[in-house]
């Protein structure tokens, strides 16, 4: 660490690296010192556009020459474990973009390595620090919804956006090689918005995936239901509806709250105080007042220049760098990283099992149909033969 604060490096200069570099630059005491990518053109474009002094195609060289305190890993997930362990062993703190790893075993390896080397790891669960989400949690902690009973989390995915188009076009795309496919790269966000309230280590779960598009050869929709001791949760990943939302609804014993991260809106679902027809006036009136409050808050944030899509990411970085600087714990606990990764593994396993069950059921149906067909053929043949024999008799 120099007098300016934290020296930051980044490995993997793809699309999400832009968001990281933009947010790092917003932290005055963080200095992006180097970027690294196996593809020199990618490293170059990131270095040029963000005015970063070091550009490398080798991680060793970047560590050696730029001596970063923290390195952000924004490479495809398959490489996270190796890169993170290499960095931790070199004495560098690591920020890993979600998802953490291909499996929970890999995640455990990385965290063990961090403990051995007395370095910190932070995982990109950045929506937990989004201003709207923080406000929602504050209201829940204040008892506005009572005891949380159920959490619904929605992720609308733009499959025909710049990234999705590449995944569709390239059969060898790294996303398609993941055990959880497209979902492994994305569902941690809606999932950790559920596990924030559903704290059981191993909740019961049901999950299935399927495709809405005939021409796309991999599943594009996922549904998962989780059941803990106190709280249940449902996760909806959809790439067939518009607009592509990042929504969470929290249902409690006293009421509910809905948070829309894209529009930075929080809507309350409250019990009406007035009876019958009056309630039908009361509810829209409450919604008007709520809309005015949301508009005022967003206008105020706009005036202050705080309406950033990746505001949560900036706050997560800031908390992580503070932890690195002060030697305290990072913003995301290791237990949480392991728990979310484990639940993701189980969801994908369940989806595959459900696929296998469905395929088995289909086979069974087909064979029973064939049996029925053969049975009815045999019956009609028997009837014919009986008929002919009776004619003979």
């Amino acid at each position: 660490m120099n007098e300016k604060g934290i020296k930051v490096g980044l490995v993997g200069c793809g699309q999400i690296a832009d968001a990281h570099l933009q947010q790092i630059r917003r932290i005055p005491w963080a200095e992006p010192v180097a970027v690294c990518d196996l593809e020199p053109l990618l490293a170059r474009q990131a270095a040029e556009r963000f005015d970063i002094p070091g550009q490398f195609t080798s991680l060793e060289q970047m560590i050696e020459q730029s001596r970063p305190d923290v390195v952000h890993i924004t490479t495809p997930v398959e490489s996270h474990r190796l890169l993170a362990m290499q960095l931790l062993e070199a004495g560098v703190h690591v920020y890993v973009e979600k998802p953490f790893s291909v499996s929970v075993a890999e995640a455990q390896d990385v965290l063990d390595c961090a403990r051995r080397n007395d370095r910190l790891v932070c995982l990109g669960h950045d929506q937990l620090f989004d201003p709207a989400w923080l406000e929602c949690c504050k209201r829940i902690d204040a008892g506005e919804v009572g005891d949380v009973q159920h959490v619904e989390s929605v992720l609308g995915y733009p499959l025909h956006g710049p990234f999705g188009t590449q995944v569709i076009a390239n059969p060898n795309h790294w996303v398609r090689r993941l055990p959880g496919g497209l979902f492994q790269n994305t569902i941690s966000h809606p999932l950790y918005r559920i596990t924030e309230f559903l704290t059981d280590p191993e909740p019961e779960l049901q999950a299935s995936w399927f495709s809405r598009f005939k021409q796309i050869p991999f599943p594009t929709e996922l549904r998962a239901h989780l059941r803990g001791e106190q709280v249940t949760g449902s996760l909806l990943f959809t790439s067939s509806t518009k607009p592509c939302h990042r929504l969470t609804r929290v249902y409690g014993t006293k009421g509910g709250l809905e948070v829309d991260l894209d529009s930075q809106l929080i809507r309350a679902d409250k019990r009406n105080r007035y009876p019958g027809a009056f309630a039908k006036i009361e509810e829209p009136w409450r919604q008007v007042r709520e809309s005015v409050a949301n508009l005022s808050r967003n206008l105020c944030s706009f005036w202050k220049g705080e309406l950033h899509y990746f505001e949560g990411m900036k706050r997560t970085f800031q908390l992580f760098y503070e932890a690195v600087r002060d030697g305290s714990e990072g913003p995301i606990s290791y237990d949480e990283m392991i728990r979310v990764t484990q639940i993701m593994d189980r969801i994908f396993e369940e989806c595959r099992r459900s696929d296998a069950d469905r395929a088995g059921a289909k086979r069974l149906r087909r064979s029973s149909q064939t049996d029925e067909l053969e049975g009815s053929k045999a019956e009609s043949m028997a009837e014919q033969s009986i008929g002919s024999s009776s004619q003979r008799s």
Partner: protein
Amino acid sequence: MCEITSETGKAAMQVLLTGATGFLGRRVLRELVDEGCAVRCAVRPGSDVQSLRQFVGARRWSCTETVNVQLSNVEQCRELVRDCSVVFHAAASLSGSASNLVMNSVVPTRSLMAAAAEERVARFVLVSSLGIYGAQQLPGHATLDEQCPVDSAGHLRDPYTYSKILQEEVAWKISLERNLPLVVVRPGVIFGDERGALSHRVGLQLGGLLLRMGGRQQVPFTYVENCAEAVALAGFNSGIDGQIFNIVDDDLPTGRQVICRYRKAGRKLRVIGVPQFATNWLARFNEWYSSKTEQQVPAVLTRYRVQAMWKPLRYSNERAKQQLGWHPSITFDEAFERTIASGV
């Protein structure tokens, strides 16, 4: 390596075309087949080949083969270019982040050119962009031709232009190092049946509003059919290896004239005119606000980009006329009418 000479017959020549399903590529394909070439089209898996087939028609389709390929894979590229005399590289991503554009346009160009050099292709024709010039260095009302230097600070431009600057840099480097004859075609703003003429060079679209930038400067248009002819000619004319050709039509209209034509054609446009002198102020404000709010609103409009995009300049197509023998066969008036008639 065979050379493209005036004797090289086009008939039955095997050529490779990338980007054949695109707006320009499909017209280039038509030109190439009409010239008598057998055309191998490199298409990405999942591309709409049926629509391409309908576009070119059954007769031309019989001279066309399509190959599903990832252009970033050198081995696949080698297979692809094998036995091809000329490669026409028209594939490029038009939108997305800079990193995506680099991965989808620049890296594939490098692989394809490396493969073309190994397979001793006689000529590589790269479809680049007129936008890559460092026009901000020219005085106002100067003529922009092939002598003008390429922008040396491409990262300050929009992601698409930056990717085209990197693409050309990579292309010239490989051409020099691997002795691969290269011809670069730099079209202006391509418009036509599927893409209207209200480009960024005319103004910026803000929701349903068009922010007309300046308005008295010429817009370097080229009608897609004219441009396709130029690209095809760049593959076959002899003695032009190592040359660059700007492709713009004759009698270019100004931004204001384009808007007037749209209105005359009955289109309702909501336009706010920003006078030339105010474009810099607007850019200065955008830069200031973006920096003050840590990019709450990104600095899309910068003084650097304003100078590069909307400076009043004249555009020359003399070299293409003289050395390619190209003449925009469809006038701007006719091209505009066709475009309007197509509904875009």
